[in-house]
């Protein structure tokens, strides 16, 4: 009896194995490693599978929620030559590191030309390393200034028509006894903020990102770096960022902005979709939604336009893929203007392709679509270097909590730490 059940078990196991093998005979299956979203990437994968008409199938596989954790997982797998990574959604700051390590398959010129046509410049820059397009722009993100019209009016500001500066925002919050929304948490969001402040003041975190690691020069020990530190330290020290400022990420800033003491907030466009959803669910009053205005990111001074943060996702092709041709075909389908417009409406993530902004659905769902596109054209990417993780973590370790930042010393502390870490002389 026992022996027979073992035999039956073996037969079942073999049949399952045969069935599993059988499915490999169909069209090649491309695995697309995606960052978590509201289901848009999975829907686009299904659309492209249909369009491919049997040439290939695209299935998605979920990466962790944090961008840094996504990088860790992909880098470990790619270093181990994982051929199951056909396509991957990449956060732009990590693209140079992946390109330099040879993790990204080469993109032929004709494909590169096709996927960059009518794409906002910021997104192309973010997908380029050493003058080669190494990933395909998919969606491009930027932060804009969200404000409560009532607070701005009481403070005598009109951000929609007259660009505001960080000093205006700080003065208004101080006078009105309100909280400013920004990301003071020790995470990638902090680097995003620091970079936008430094770039808006006319500086750069890394002056020569293309150089070998020993020669990299940091640009924060400058007037721009000190001005950025001054803004952060003022908001942190005076408690203008609210009680939990040093742990505030994008989501927490949004909740604070929706509360009674919300005033101005710099944040990504997802807050519009999220606040609308919260109103539908009855968690936020309609009056709050009606009170929300938007404008370009605050400038550092009135005579110099702001350089807002740039983010988003570009799609890379794994260098160890067994199906390069199919992956190249699939990626062009994934990033088509129609799919980008769909993704914009479905997930609230702005398109990299300018045509998507003309889409009537996009215009209806995102009344601020034009502001987003203008912001994308003005946006400055974070430092593009294969050592981005060291630079970003070094900044986060030395410029946190925001209240402890000092314009006269923090830029120097950060520079010393990052340079020493890059030379292998210190721990991080």
């Amino acid at each position, binding site marked *: 009896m026992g022996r027979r059940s073992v035999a039956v078990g073996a037969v079942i196991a073999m049949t399952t194995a045969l069935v599993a093998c059988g499915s490999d005979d169909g069209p090649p299956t491309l695995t697309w490693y995606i960052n978590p979203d509201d289901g848009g990437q999975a829907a686009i994968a299904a659309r492209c599978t249909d369009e491919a008409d049997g040439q290939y199938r695209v299935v998605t596989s979920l990466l962790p929620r944090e961008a*840094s954790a996504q990088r860790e997982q992909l880098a470990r797998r790619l270093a181990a030559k994982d051929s199951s990574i056909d396509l991957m959604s990449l956060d732009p700051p990590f693209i140079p590191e992946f390109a330099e390590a040879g993790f990204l398959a080469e993109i032929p010129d004709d494909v590169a030309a096709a996927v960059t046509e009518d794409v906002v410049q910021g997104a192309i820059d973010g997908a380029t390393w050493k003058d080669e397009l190494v990933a395909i722009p998919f969606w491009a993100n930027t932060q804009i200034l969200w404000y409560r019209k009532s607070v701005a009016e009481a403070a005598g500001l009109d951000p929609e028509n007259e660009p505001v500066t960080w000093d205006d925002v700080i003065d208004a919050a101080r006078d009105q006894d309100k909280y400013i929304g920004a990301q003071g948490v020790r995470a990638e969001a902090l680097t995003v903020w620091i970079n936008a402040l430094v770039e808006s003041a006319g500086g750069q975190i890394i002056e020569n990102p293309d150089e070998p690691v020993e020669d990299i020069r940091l640009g924060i020990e400058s007037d721009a770096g000190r001005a950025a530190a001054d803004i952060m330290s003022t908001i942190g020290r005076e408690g203008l960022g609210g009680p939990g400022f040093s742990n505030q990420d994008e989501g927490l800033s949004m909740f604070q902005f929706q509360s009674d003491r919300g005033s101005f907030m710099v944040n990504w466009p997802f807050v519009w979709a999220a606040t609308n959803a919260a109103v539908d669910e009855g968690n936020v009053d309609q009056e709050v939604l009606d009170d929300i205005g938007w404008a370009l990111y605050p400038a550092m001074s009135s005579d110099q336009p702001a350089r807002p943060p740039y983010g988003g996702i570009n799609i890379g092709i794994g260098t160890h893929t067994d199906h390069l041709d199919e992956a190249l075909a699939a990626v062009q389908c994934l990033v088509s203007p129609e799919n980008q417009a769909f993704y914009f409406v479905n997930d609230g993530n702005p398109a990299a392709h300018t045509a998507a902004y003309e889409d009537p659905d996009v215009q209806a769902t995102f009344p601020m679509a034009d502001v987003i596109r203008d912001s994308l054209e003005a946006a400055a990417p974070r430092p593009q270097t294969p050592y981005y993780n060291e630079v970003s973590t070094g900044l986060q370790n030395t410029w946190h909590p925001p209240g402890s930042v000092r314009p006269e010393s923090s830029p120097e502390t950060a520079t010393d730490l990052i340079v020493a870490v890059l030379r292998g002389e210190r*721990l991080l």
Partner: protein
Amino acid sequence: MTTTEQPVQTSPRGAGRARISDRARSERRLGWWLAGPAFAVMLLVTAYPIGQAVYESLFQYRLTDPDAREFNGLGNYAVILTDSVWWQAVGVTVFITVITVAIEAVLGFALALVMHRALTVLRPLLRTAILVPYAIITVVSAFAWLYAFGSGTGFINQWFGWLPGINEDLDWFGSFGTSVTVIIASEIWKTTPFISLLLLAGLAQVPEDLQEAAKVDGATWWQRLYKVTIPNMKAAIMVALLFRTLDAFRIFDNVFIMTQGAQGTEVVSFLAYRQTISRLEIGMGSAVSVLLFLCVVLISVTFIKLFKVNLASARGEG
């Protein structure tokens, strides 16, 4: 009243070494046969990775740049040991370890006494109730504590607003003192059951006739505790402390989930994680891991030599 301990059995080992009977020999062979496979598996899953870590710690090696890998000797160790970041992490780790183990030992002993003395009907229920926190995965409990204390999701500030120093706007993860308090409290909540279970086993070993004799002699409850109970379960106490100290020194989950090392709460394991996993600097990360391993070895050796912990005696084989 003098300390009363169980008579120590004298081992006949010294005398028997010269001639081993056939039976002893075959027993020894059986012992190897039984323990051998486990020993081989241990070598494979622990000795090999440790060996590899030691080897890789001698290189400058970044996972994204394997071609630039070069032999560095003890360079990585020199960088680590001269860096204030390392010493700060060691300091924080020792601080958390000492505080948690001390509090847990007292609390765990109290819980063990309660379990030991509880009525037979209540005992299984009580034991299960006390064990619940230990059954929860550390990451999950860390999230529970994070959400309980976090600004935005937390209820602690509202519930305990009447206490001095706690108000609606208190950001628990905004400074070192409050962050580390939550981390330590979470550790204690989670692992006190472990220590109390080990101590309960020790309590069960204290011979009842010694207690009876002490009672007849007119010893009070405290006197019996200090002169009979604790001396007789010293081995169990030391083993419990050793296991918990080793565990506490490797703390990672709570720090990782709650602060990500912010506010100066970086611990040694987190430092190793950051070098190896985040920075992909395999060489430097391996060196940190090896140093962490050496710290753990040092703790074990100290306990075993200094406090004369006999692991076998804790199991009642003394």
